[in-house]
Every structure is written in C-alpha cells, then in structure tokens.
C-alpha cells in the first residue's frame, strides 16, 4: 500500500492536515465556536469556485475567502464571538455567491468542470499531486507554529476571558487572530476531505478528546492524535475498499470514535461529568 505514490501523497497531505485540524479543532470546541468553524468551511466552497470562475489557482481563492471572512466574523462579534444569526445569514449569502460562481464555471469554462464542484465539496485526497501534497504539508506546519505561539494566551482567554483581560492578555485581538487560523485551516482541509466534510475533522476528534482527558494540554494532544489516527485508518479502509470514498471513511472513523467514547463515558457506574467549558 505504501509503495503507491498516490497513497504516499495522500498520507503526507492527510497527516499534516489532520494534525492541524485536531489542534485547531480543540480550541474551536473549547471556545464554543463550532458554528463559526462550520460557516468558514462553507465559505471555502465559494472561495474555491470563485477562483475557478476567474481562472486563478484554487488555493488563492480558498485562503483569501476563508481568512477575510474569518477576520470579519471576529470583528463583528464583540468579544470575537459573533452572533449565530449574523453568521448564519452571512454565510448563506456567501454560499449563494458560490452557486453563482458554479453556474459561471459550468457555462463558460468547459474543461473538466462537471466534477469540480463535487471535488471541492467532498475532496479528492487520492488525486492530490506530489507538489500539492508538499505545499499542503508546509502550510500546515506553518499554521501549527502560529497556533503554538497563540496557544497559551488563547487557552487562558478561552477559559476565563475576564481574568485573562485583567492580566493583560489582548483578548480582543486573540479572537479574530484565532478565527483567521481556523479559516486557513478550513482552506487547507478542503483540499483533503472537502469543504463539506472538513468540519467533522475539526469537531469530532476534539469533542472526543474533551470527553476523555480533563487536563487541557492532554486533551489538545489527544485531539491531534485522534485526528491523525482517524485519517490513517480512513485512508487504509478506502484503499482496501475502493467503492468507499476516502473522505467518507475518514469521517466514519472519527464519528465512530466519538460515539464509542460517548457510550463509554456515559455508561452507568462510570459516570463522569464532562468538562464544562467556560
């Protein structure tokens, strides 16, 4: 399996994106910004389709759209947490523009576009090229470094914003900065599992880790580990059973782990109150 070049590229891109998504996802769940993450994943679709409609590199559209909208969302909400009604209304309109771009792409640009929309929505990790996989890995490493710099103040600000603000943590700046990282992560993950499914990679491992570990740093590491494990298992399953799309297999493993954890942690006798987040 590992001798196949397409599998090596898939593993390289998949592992780096999963690592990033697991780390970022932990903070997304901790800060109750799951909905914002979801919105950004939909924005990624519009970004990619707009890039296709204009005829520029897909990644340019992806990263520009997600990061701009992320900063906007962060700026709109007072404490860097935007109102869910504003998020919902805005992203449904952004998605509407995505549909417009889709109709432009399908009517004006003939070459190989019948599948472009589906590829952006659901990813095609087995079709990723060596160069794209390396670029994805490099960007992921860069984002992980940025997140590492943000991590300590971000954790503080997430758990107790008022105390953190009193201790001089720039809480107002951290919100938009973190959302920008989430946006970039969404753009990254779109290339592997697709715009519609990347959100599972953000939420599922993080929610599982929060139920299993009580200490923040342990949970953070566990979340990243679970995301990578889900990706490896999913890719292996998809390799063994070609009728299963790889994105589906990855998501199925991540969801399965969450459900199993849910059953174990809420079983009678082992009742354990989940960590209530600030």
């Amino acid at each position, binding site marked *: 399996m590992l001798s196949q070049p397409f599998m090596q590229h898939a593993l390289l891109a998949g592992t780096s994106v999963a690592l990033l998504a697991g780390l970022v996802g932990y903070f997304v769940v901790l800060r109750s910004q799951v909905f914002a993450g979801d919105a950004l994943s939909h924005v990624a679709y519009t970004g990619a389709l707009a890039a296709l409609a204009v005829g520029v590199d897909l990644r340019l559209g992806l990263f520009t759209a997600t990061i701009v909208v992320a900063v906007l969302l962060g700026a709109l909400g007072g404490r860097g947490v935007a109102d869910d009604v504003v998020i919902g209304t805005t992203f449904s309109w952004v998605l509407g523009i995505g549909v417009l771009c889709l109709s432009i792409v399908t009517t004006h640009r003939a070459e190989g576009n019948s599948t472009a929309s589906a590829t952006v929505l659901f990813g095609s990790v087995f079709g990723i090229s060596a160069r794209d996989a390396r670029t994805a890995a490099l960007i992921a490493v860069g984002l992980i470094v940025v997140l590492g710099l943000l991590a300590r103040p971000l954790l503080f600000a997430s758990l107790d914003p008022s105390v953190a603000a009193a201790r001089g943590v720039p809480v107002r700046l951290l919100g938009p900065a973190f959302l920008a990282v989430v946006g970039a992560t969404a753009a990254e993950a779109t290339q592997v599992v697709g715009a519609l499914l990347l959100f599972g990679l953000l*939420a599922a491992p993080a*929610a599982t880790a929060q139920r299993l570990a009580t200490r923040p740093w342990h949970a953070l590491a566990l979340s990243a580990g679970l995301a990578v494990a889900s990706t490896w298992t999913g890719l292996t399953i998809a390799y063994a059973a070609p009728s299963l799309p790889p994105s589906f297999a990855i998501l*199925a493993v991540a969801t399965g782990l969450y459900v199993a954890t849910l059953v174990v942690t809420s079983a009678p006798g082992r009742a354990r109150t989940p960590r209530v987040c600030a």
Partner: protein
Amino acid sequence: MDVHLSWNLVNDLRQLLEFHFMVNALRAGTIVAIVAGAIGYVMVIRRQSFAGHTLALVGFPGAAGAVWLGLDASIGFFGFCIAAAVLLGLAPAGGSGQQSAAIGIVQSFGLACGLLFVSLYHGFLSGLNNLLFGTIVGVTDRQVLVLLIAGVVALVALAALGRPLLFTSIDEAAARSRGVPTRLVGIAFLVLLGVAAAGASQVTGSLLVFSLLVAPAATAVRLTARPVVGLVLSVAIALVVTWLGESAAYFSSYPIGFWVTTFAFGLFLLANGYRAVVK
C-alpha cells in the same frame, strides 16, 4: 424557452405562469416560505440556528439515499431530517461547546453518508448540485401535494405547541418549575424544524435552506420585538424573497440559490440599516 422581462407587469406575470413547472415551483415556494418563515422565527428566538442548519444539511444524504434506492426524494428529505431532529433532541447535555460539537458531528457524518450514496449511485453528479443548491425545474405535482400536507401538519403542530414553546424559549427554568415538559417541548420543536428544513431543501437545496429559515426571521427580529407581529413579518419576508428569487431565476440565466440568498441578505442588511438610523 423565450422569456423577456419588461415593464409590463401583467405580461411578465403571464410569462411567469406560462409553464407548468414554474407554476409548481411557485406553489412549492409559497408553501415552503410560509412554513420556514414561521418555524424559522421561533428557531431564531430559541437560538437554535446551528441545529436548524444541521437539519437542513441532513436532508441531502436523505435525498441522495432515496435516489440511490430508487425512492422518491421527498421521502428521503423528510425521513432523514426528522430522524436527525430526534437524534439532536437526545444529544447529551454538557458544556455548550460539547453540545454544538455533537451537532456538528451529526452534520458532517450525515454529509459524508450523502457522499457515500452519491458515489454508490454512479452518474448522479448533475443531480448532486440540484440537491445541494436547488432548482426551479422538476417540482412534480406529487411533491407539491406532499409539501402542502407536511406544511399544514407542521403549522398546526406549531400552533398547538405555541404557548408552552414560547414559555420554554423565554425562560426555561421557570417553565420547568411550572410543570412544562421542557425537554419534550424541545424535541417536538426540533422535529418541526426538521420538517421545515426538509420542505425548504426541495426548493433552495440543502445548502441554502438557511436563507429561508434564518434570514427572514433575523430581519423580522430587527424590526419588531413583538412575537406575533414578528412571526407574521418573518413569513411575509420569506414569501417576498421566495417569489422574487424564483422569478429572477426564471428570467435570468443564474440559479435560484443565488437569487434567494441575495434577496434575503439584502433585506437583512436593510433592516440593520433601518435599526441603526432609528436608534
């Protein structure tokens, strides 16, 4: 098809109603807008936008699965949306982060299943975009009938649920202490939300249901604080947005999803502007 938009409104209307598919689209749109406007308003007040969004998206695997098995897409839309609503209602309580994460996991796993069904049913790619982003062609007479029945049932149920639902939405603790079964009311409302989302999916597509479910309600909330007036206003806005969107899609070469979301967002911005001026 040769249609032109002109200043003669009567002529425009005649053109609009010339084809049976368009009449059906307008009928379906009207039913869907009324239901989505009303239920969406309660959803916005209850701050359950994320759950509504998830229920809307879950319609996609339902429809894809139904098509794969050779069934009617309506069955898939309603079946999956209602099942997901019950699932969300039973979701574990916990921190707000955990709860929304659970909703998110239901959503993305549902979408992943949709992908699986689509790839198992080969040659379905053109239908994929219609399921996700909606289309004005291809609403059948039977679909209109199913939508009508589901819509009437949902509105009657909403009216029956009205008082305890409003009480629970405004002050859950007080409602519980007065003997209102808040958990049951919550699950019942999620099921109604599922029905509304499934209906709207068939007009705007699964990904854009939100433009009918949340935007009209959010606009209404910004214009009035009175619940009943807000509910009526939300329905009216949803109707206007749907009719305008469907007509624009008919007369232009751009898809309905773009028009409906754009009109909905435009009205939302106008309402925000109005509030900023009045205050």
